[in-house]
């Protein structure tokens, strides 16, 4: 139940591998945040530094304004659940009891707390069984119970649901969310599964190459991604980009992608100072497509229609450019000519380097 603050933490493995590069992160007390990013982005390293398994090459770690960088995991009272389901060769009860046993908690209280934790996880009925013989889903529940029974300062979960069957996965997601809400527990969740991160967490830290790119609520990440990487990474599929140049024509400012242009006169003032070459981004979900010709829309040829879940993913080509659109219903068929529009409020403009302008 603490606030965690990472101050300029850098970590280098061996001589060269920079796993974390000057990362600063503040996690509010009682919040569930996710660390999201492609493999190798540094999320597990961050996790382990917070846990106390790793001492950062430079930078400090604070729990509630107390510098814990030099302290062991035990002293920080963190709990960690791993992707590899860790179970000791004992009964379920003894597994959950272990941390309490180590801390010499008196027997009566131990029994009480273990039973409580088991109940929360829904595993009270297997307390006397050998934990290693149970199925992965149940075993991970045991691991969670063991982590929880200690009333830790922070709960660290490193892709805990990867090795669990889908059914239990949903169950566990619910349990984790509830636990966090009811107990106001600070939780950090590492995952490479966007959907999980988006549904579970209050805030997400998107990381890449050891740097924290953006730390925001899911909505903000979706709507206003700070750079092209985040924009592309979030979403299924992510945002698409077109290289454009800022042009002036008949008094209006246009972003010209070659095959089509978008009017940006109303924000031209903000754009001008970033030079001529800008990137235009729009999410496939926001692209408007119609089989009827509409004013101001441009035409494109539909090359493919795929069904994705309950939506259609259309591939439209105009000249050398390809546009993807994801819409619920359409009467556009493959080979048809369709009319496309990018609603201006959904358009995002990025610098050539990838930073968000509007």
């Amino acid at each position: 139940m603490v606030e965690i603050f990472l101050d300029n933490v850098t970590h280098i493995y061996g001589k060269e591998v920079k796993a974390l590069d000057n990362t600063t992160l503040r996690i509010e007390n009682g919040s569930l945040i996710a660390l999201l990013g492609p493999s190798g982005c540094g999320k597990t390293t961050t996790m382990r530094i917070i846990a106390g398994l790793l001492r950062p090459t430079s930078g400090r770690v604070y729990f509630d304004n107390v510098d814990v960088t030099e302290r062991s995991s035990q002293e920080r009272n963190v709990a960690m659940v791993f992707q590899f389901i860790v179970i000791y060769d004992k009964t379920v009860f003894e597994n959950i009891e272990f941390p309490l046993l180590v801390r010499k908690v008196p027997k009566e209280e131990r029994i009480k707390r273990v039973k409580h934790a088991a109940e929360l996880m829904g595993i009270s009925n297997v307390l006397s069984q050998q934990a290693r013989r149970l199925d992965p889903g149940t075993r991970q529940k045991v691991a969670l119970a063991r982590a929880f029974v200690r009333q830790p300062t922070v709960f660290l979960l490193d892709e805990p649901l990867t090795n669990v069957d889908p059914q239990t996965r949903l169950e566990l997601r619910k349990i984790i969310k509830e636990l966090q809400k009811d107990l106001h527990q600070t939780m950090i969740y590492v995952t490479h599964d966007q959907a999980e991160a988006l549904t579970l967490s209050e805030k997400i830290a998107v990381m890449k190459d050891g740097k924290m790119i953006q730390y925001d609520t899911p909505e903000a990440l979706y709507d206003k991604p700070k750079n092209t990487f985040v924009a592309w990474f979030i979403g299924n599929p992510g945002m698409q980009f077109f290289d454009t140049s800022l042009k002036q024509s008949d008094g209006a400012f246009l972003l010209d992608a070659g095959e089509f242009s978008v009017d940006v006169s109303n924000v031209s003032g903000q754009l001008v100072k970033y030079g001529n070459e800008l990137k235009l981004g729009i999410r496939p979900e926001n692209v408007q497509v119609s089989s009827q010709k509409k004013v101001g829309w441009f035409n494109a040829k539909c090359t493919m229609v795929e069904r994705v879940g309950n939506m259609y993913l259309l591939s439209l080509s105009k000249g050398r450019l390809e546009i993807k659109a994801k819409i619920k219903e359409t009467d556009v068929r493959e080979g048809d000519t369709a009319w496309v529009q990018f609603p201006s409020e959904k358009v995002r403009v990025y610098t050539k380097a990838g930073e968000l302008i509007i």
Partner: protein
Amino acid sequence: MKKMSFRNKTLFIALIPMIYLYGLVIYPFASVIYYSFFSYDIGGTPVFNGVGNYIQLFTDTQFYRTLGLTLSYSILAVGTEFLFGIGLAYLLMHISRGRSVATSILILPLVMTPAVAGIIWRIMFDAGFGHVNFYLSLIGIPGQKWLIRPTEAFISTVIVDVWQWTPFVTLVTFAGLTTLPVELVESAYIDGASEFRTFKDILLPRIRALLYIILFLRVIDTLKIFDTVYTMTGGGPGTATTYMSIFNYLNLMTFYHIGYGCTIAAFFILLMNVVVTILSKKAGAALFAT
């Protein structure tokens, strides 16, 4: 004409050697049991003796003495090897640099010809000039008449066994431990367990099967110990270190009682079978699983 299916033919060829195996194993078994009922000395002729040999065996005080010695030897040696061996494995786990040097040194006792080891230790245990007494005197323990007095001789054989086989326990345990996932240790660390506790309550239970196998192999081997003891003490002084194998050998080769020798052998083989059966439930299952 129909060709024999290739599968059957190659299988057949591959397993023919097994017949050699059966023959060479079954024949001795049958033979030993057969002759155990005979009174037969080398150079003489076998005379059927019914269970006469067996009666002789079970009324032979030396037999019981031997049995007792063998069991004590086994328990003492294996016990020490386990404690010492696992302890060393613990040490190895907690150091980072010298591991390959340590493992190289540790295999030396294992590959040394047991018979030769017996000879070397024989020299070292010499009461007058042996180095064992010398080093003991350095730490204040007076020299013992190692190979001269019965109890000391017994202990010296145990020491040699411990010397030769503790590395086995250590290296196998260590190998098993290194295959365990690192998250196991990390989780225990986060849970707050000390290094020792982690070792005892988390890691060792995980390699329980392996430990059974080690135990199993060591017990079997100590019960039939022969090489080192024979070259070091020859079974003496007197019969102080005459373990089952040596007892069997002496009756056969020194006293030339083949019949009686077979009786002993039959009993011994039966004993080993029983021990193997009892112990193999846990160990064998683990072996077959690999």
